[in-house]
């Protein structure tokens, strides 16, 4: 199947349909995969495809303004492109999506070991990208059976805790936050020209590493991704402090699904969650 990707990439570059192809290449450790930016036909052989291709490449689309881009895209990553299209950040005609019907990626923490599905792949059922220009399927043998697992298992576990326990839990987790904003930088949907975290007029919340500053930043990040996050999991992967950010993202994902039947990244024509409403939205929390 890597041949299929290469063939397509070659064709795209040759016919000048795109200026650049974004895909994956081997990292220097010879195991992992890192993004590859190919603009010469000669470099096409660097392209790889395996379970280590974890990066959500859509994050790099904005780095090539005015260029036509071909991009290797997993199912989840294509959803973030759907949101980017929804939010006017991309032009569909500028990108050529080489969609991969992915059968799961490895858990990076177990690098070098056996291929095991990453936590976020469990419960991901339609691995087919919602949008693509060409679809390449993984080989039959790699299509290991997907676990029928509740994607919200760990959210539910946390929900049952008492208020004090919850606060304690998150306080501990957030206490490690060093406000490096790696979670933001890696997120394909955090594209604001100037993040509120860096604004001073007004200063929206404390920039200091403190309980309330860290809480505020993380609540802000989560709220800004409400109805947008497609759970590519890059934030959690990038977090040097190992904060379980996906547990926050999934919580909102679950809530908006339950409250408003809203799902992110499935339809480019969909209105943003907070820029729309239903007259019958629940309001049992309002006095």
């Amino acid at each position, binding site marked *: 199947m890597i041949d299929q990707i290469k063939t397509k990439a070659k064709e795209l570059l040759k016919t000048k349909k795109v200026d650049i192809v974004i895909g994956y290449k081997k990292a220097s450790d010879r195991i992992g995969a890192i993004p590859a930016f190919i603009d010469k036909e000669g470099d096409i052989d660097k392209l790889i495809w395996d379970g280590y291709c974890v990066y959500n490449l859509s994050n790099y689309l904005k780095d090539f*303004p*005015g260029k036509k881009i071909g991009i290797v895209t997993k199912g989840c990553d294509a959803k973030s492109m759907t949101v980017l299209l929804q*939010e*006017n*950040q991309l032009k569909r005609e500028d990108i050529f999506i080489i969609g991969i019907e992915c059968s799961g990626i490895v858990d990076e923490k177990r690098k070098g070991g056996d291929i095991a599905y990453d936590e976020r792949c469990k419960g991901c059922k339609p691995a087919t990208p919602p949008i693509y220009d060409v679809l390449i399927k993984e080989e039959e043998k790699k299509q290991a059976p997907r676990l029928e697992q509740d994607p919200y298992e760990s959210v539910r576990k946390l929900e049952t805790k008492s208020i004090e326990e919850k606060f304690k839990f998150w306080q501990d987790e957030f206490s490690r936050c060093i406000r490096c904003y790696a979670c933001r930088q890696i997120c394909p949907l955090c*594209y*604001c*020209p*100037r*993040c*509120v975290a860096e*604004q001073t*007029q*007004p*200063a*929206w919340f404390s920039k200091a590493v403190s309980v309330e500053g860290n809480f505020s930043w993380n609540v802000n990040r989560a709220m*800004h991704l409400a109805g947008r996050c497609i759970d590519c999991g890059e934030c959690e992967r990038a977090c040097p402090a190992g904060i379980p950010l996906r547990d926050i993202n999934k919580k909102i994902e679950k809530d908006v699904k339950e409250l408003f039947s809203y799902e992110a990244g499935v339809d480019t024509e969909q*209105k*943003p969650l*907070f*820029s*729309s409403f239903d007259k019958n939205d629940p309001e049992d929390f309002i006095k």
Partner: protein
Amino acid sequence: MKIGVFVCHCGTNIAGTVDVERVSQAASKFPKVKHSASYKYMCSNPGQNLVKDAIKKHKLDRIVIASCSPSLHEKTFRKCVEAAGINPYLIEMANIREHCSWVHKDREKATQKAIELTRLAVSKVSRNKPLEKTYTTIEKKVLIIGGGISGIQAAIDIAFANYPAVIVEREPSIGGRMARFDKTFPTLDCAACILTPKMVTVSQSEHVTMHTYSEIEEVSGFVGNFTVKIRKKARSVDINKCTGCGACYNKCPVKVPSEFDMGLGKRKAIYTPFPQAVPNVPVIDRENCLYFKTKKCGICKKICTVGAIDYDMKDEVIEEKFGAIIVATGFNQFDHSVYGEYGYGKHKDMITGLHFERMVNSSGPTGGKIIRPSDGKEVRDVVFIQCVGSRDEQKGLPYCSRLCCMYTAKHALLLREHNKDSQAYVFYIDIRAAGKNYEEFVKKVQDEYGAIYLRGRVSRIFEKGGKLIVRGADTLSGAQIEIKADLVVLATGLVAQKDAPSLAQMLHIPYDKNNLFTEAHPKLAPVETITSGIFLTGACQSPKDIPDTVATASAASVKALGLMVQDKLAREPLIASVNQDLCSGCLACLKACPFSAIEEDEIEDRKLRRKRTVAKVREAVCTGCGNCTAVCRMAAIDLEGFTNTQIMEEVETL
């Protein structure tokens, strides 16, 4: 920055619970406050003069008034400081009366709270910016959607003031529902006699343009500057050539049920809906026309001496600009086929009030004879049922349709006038005859025209022996009643036009759960909508009889003319604005704006060295609700008067 704080005693209203002097002293120590004072009545002339003098004496540049609710005196003090040379938007009010002295009894706590409220206002005002009112130009032309009595009246009023009006009517002729009526309550003048002169006036007015057989396709823009696309459907008859001689429809071989006559009569495939139609130019109904169906016939074209028939005519979409829009789209009838007890609308001799109007009309399909549609026999016993659909939350409408009581009484009267031997029975829930000479009219029908009024609901109607057996309860006598009727007339309720929601969406005006357009305020702004420059008249807003319809038409016209006479339109500056450098162009704000007051704009990004899309506020449309600011993740859009900085400053001061 030199802030002045002025604390009002409001007689004892504030001073009775709050130690005003202490508030004033405390305020004098707040950062940036250069002067503070208190006075018995700050809103009085001496009070205002005290503020003005202090501004001059202490060179104050921002003012806080700690007194009553801003809803009472914000305007007063804006004017006051403006007179003293300060921008009117550089004041804030601390509400220490309604929100403090009147709701607390503990003097100490109330005083403390008053101090804090004043502190909040001081912190906010320190972040205020001078603002200027904005101005827009006005297109001096009014669009009227709907050519019924409502739209006609509006057009006449606008034209009388020498401003141009354009009527868009989807039927081939103006006239609307009223053109179908026979006589009108309570005076019984004939509808045609009072309507047709108005139709002629409109058609002859140099200020009025009519687009009949036309529909609104698209509306954009805002008050003073609406751009409207109008689809002129292909009439197949050249309106400029046609003389209205009528030869074409006289000779046309195709007969179909006439919509105007509610299917009681026939019309041709080329037709004018009724003889007094304006314009008196026929239209070809292409679905039924032989030429369009089979390419044969063509009689009308052959017979037309002026060559007005044009089979190749196409729909035409024109674009016009308007300063104001009057919506006069009227109503539809409730569909009574939901009622099983009335036979699901299957009984032939059961008609609606509008059918009755056509039947009783001497120029109508039966020549004024009231007959049974099933066998054409003249009727004797007629049962009228009121509130069909109206006041029925279960199967119909929650509201009262307001005119059925009156038109049913009129029908009962006309029935007896047309046939001395007839008998009217009227089933009603309540008689709602609130209008000038209305109650008297109903009484007259009961007393002089022998209509029998029965207070109760009809439980079942069925056919037996060629008659309709109407069974119901007379709740006044407690008896079960059965009437063998020749004809049953249903006073079906008034409902919104089927496509009312799509028009409302086009116009960005709200509509309620019954699809009726919503006025800006039910009492104080009954013909306005929340979208400025768009006004409502007639039954599209709620069921209305002719007097009310005409009154609202004139009211809406005055509102529209109020815009027409202005040179420029002043707008409050408390609206949103975009910092385009911060804007990512995600357009979350555009999608969340209830007023479509945000549009796309393009800027040259200096950093990226390319053009990119950003949001831009259409100042004339923005109402200042601030919803956009809350959905903007990058805080690139802000609301003047309630800016993020102001609010965060207030919170910071807590």
